[in-house]
Structure formats: structure tokens, C-alpha cells
């Protein structure tokens, strides 16, 4: 068993997170790939409503390996916001 210093988990880059979120949107909601842009609004442009967002957050929980509180996604409006939020969750859990 290794009780030595824990090597920090590999943090995915911004681009890797974006690619993952993009793929989730396609697989979970059949969003047209052409519509997915950083400034695309989840609700208006991609027709992802609050109930859909629950599924998205669950999948992102699997991805980050960390519990995500609904408050953390409260101010998320665009695809870019999702990526940034996931980025900061990954960064804080890597620092912890």
C-alpha cells in the first residue's frame, strides 16, 4: 500500500473538458454538433431545460469524480459556463 505523497490526479485541460461536454450534449440530448459553441445558451439555443440539466450534472459528477452541488450550476447559462465550472471544480479537487 502506498502511503507516500499522493500524486495529483491529471487535470484535464480546458480543451479536453470542452470536448467532453460537447460529446455529452450530443449523446444525452442529440444536440446538433454545429449548434454547440462556447457562447451557445443551454436553454435558448440548445433547448436544454432544468430537468435535462439534472442529467447533465449527474454525468459531469461521474466525469469529475466529485459531488456537484446544484448551486454551482445555478449561474450557468452557456456551454462555456459549463466548461469553466467543470474546470474550477477539477482545479479545486486537485488542490484539495
Amino acid at each position, binding site marked *: 500500500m502506498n502511503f507516500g505523497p499522493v500524486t495529483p490526479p491529471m487535470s484535464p485541460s480546458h480543451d479536453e473538458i470542452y470536448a467532453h461536454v460537447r460529446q455529452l450534449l450530443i449523446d444525452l440530448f442529440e444536440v446538433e454538433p454545429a449548434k454547440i459553441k462556447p457562447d451557445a445558451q443551454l436553454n435558448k439555443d440548445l433547448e436544454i431545460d432544468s*430537468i*435535462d440539466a439534472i*442529467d447533465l450534472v449527474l454525468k459531469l459528477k461521474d466525469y469529475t469524480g466529485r459531488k456537484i452541488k446544484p448551486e454551482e450550476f445555478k449561474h450557468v447559462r452557456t456551454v462555456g459556463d459549463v466548461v469553466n465550472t467543470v474546470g474550477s471544480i477539477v482545479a479545486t479537487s486537485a488542490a484539495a
Partner: protein
Amino acid sequence: MTPVPARTLGWRLDYAWRALATGFCFAVFGLVSLLAGLTLFPALCLPARDAETARRRAQALTHRWFGTFSRLMAALGTIRYEIHGAERLRMPGQMIVANHPSLIDVVLLLGYLPEVDCIMKQAIFDNPFMKGPARWLGYIAQSTPEQLFTDAHSALHRNHSVLVFPEGTRTVPGQPIRMGHGAARLALEAKATVLPVAIRVTPPHLFKHEPWWRPPLTRPHYVLTVGKSYPAARFLDEADGVPSVAARRLSRHWEQYFAEHTGAAAAHPLADPPGQPHYSRADHAFPRKS
């Protein structure tokens, strides 16, 4: 589009009469509902041996009153209405899904539905006039998604029919029918039998932000068309069991179905042939001297 009527004296009298009669009907509706909430509902429901009996009595009472009210509105010349396939509404345990063009569509529909649990906005349960009856009736509040799902699921499980307007609010005339994915999720999760009811009213009547004292230029005609029921699970199978995809497809299917059957604009124009616009502002221009 309804032809614009000539502003004859006869038309002016009819217009004024319809505005007045609508006001009268609404006053009667409010008064009777309030009195019934204080007298008839408790008189019928309190002696009931259990909540289920109380609910059935309250729903039967509402059904009769709404049927009477619909006939009153028609008798006074404020509306015309007809329904096709009403017998299919009486099958218990269905999830009845309707579009929501008008304030009174639910009144017309419940006139044909002796027993149904309606899903309603939380605001109705907070309204002092409505909350009493809504409780007796066993209606389902849209409080949190979790609570709504639990309540609606258990209603369907007890073989009650559930009525839902997936748009969540009234359609804006000329705007496409948009349905969030909540109702579709519920249908899929409960593996419900879906019964669509398309409600068409020409010209648009009592839509969102339209006051009762400004009726349309011609008498509005309601046509309620009850479709054929189908299992929601069909959409889950077609989406390889992924509920988020199935819910999206089912919602989109409803948007197209209701657009086709009511003449409303299509939400996804590529999927539908361009149709005759259903609404024109001319239908609602306030009458003025020409």
C-alpha cells in the same frame, strides 16, 4: 385566418353583447366556485369515508359544473365548441396531454372528463379561492420536479387519469407551441399511456394577456380533438433506453403533433411544411370606426 366582419350595427351589437356576456359568465363562475368551495365541496367531501371517495365526489362535481358552465357560455353566444372522440377520455389511468391556447380550454375539457387529476401550477394552490377545492380534488401541484413526479406517478399507479399541459402556460398566438421536457420525462418514467387532445380555437380567444372584455371580432369556435392513445415506452425503445434522448424526441413529437392539429406555427420549421398562418393581428384589432 378569419375574415374581418363588416362593422354593421348588427355586428357592433353582437360584439358588445359577447363582451358583456363573457364578463357575466366569469362573474358567475367566480361566485359559484367560491360558494361551492365553502358549501358543496365540504358537504360532499367531509362525510366521505376516505380521501379517495372525497376526491371522486369533488371531481364529479367539478365535471358537472364545468359542463354546465361551458353550455352557459355557448348559450349566451360567447363561444361555440365541439369535441371529437370524447369517449376515449373516459378510459382510466391515461396521461392526457393537451395544448393550452385559452383560459377556458381546461373548463371545456373537464366538462367531458368525470374523473381526472390535473397537474397545476403551484400558484393555483397558493390562491386563497382555489386552494380549498384543489385539495379536495386531489390535484397535483407543480412544486418541485421531484414532488410532481412522485405525485403524478402514484396517481397513474392508482389508475387515475392525469391531465397535463406540457407547454406549462398558454400559447402565445402566432408563436410556435413549445413544450419543455418535464411532461415527456414524466410520461416515460411512469411508462404511461399517452392520450393527446388537440385544442383549436379560431379566432384566438382568452389567450395570455388578452382580457375578457376584448373578445375576438367573430365568435370563437373551439374544436377539441381527442387522438389515439399510445404507450410512451415506444419512444424509450426507439432511443435505445436513453431517457434524456427519448424525452426530447417525445416533446418534439408533441410540438409537431399539436402544431399540425391546431394550425399553430411549427416549432421546428424544417420538420413541417409551411402552413397558413393561424393568427393575424387583424382578428384582434379593437373595433374602431372605419
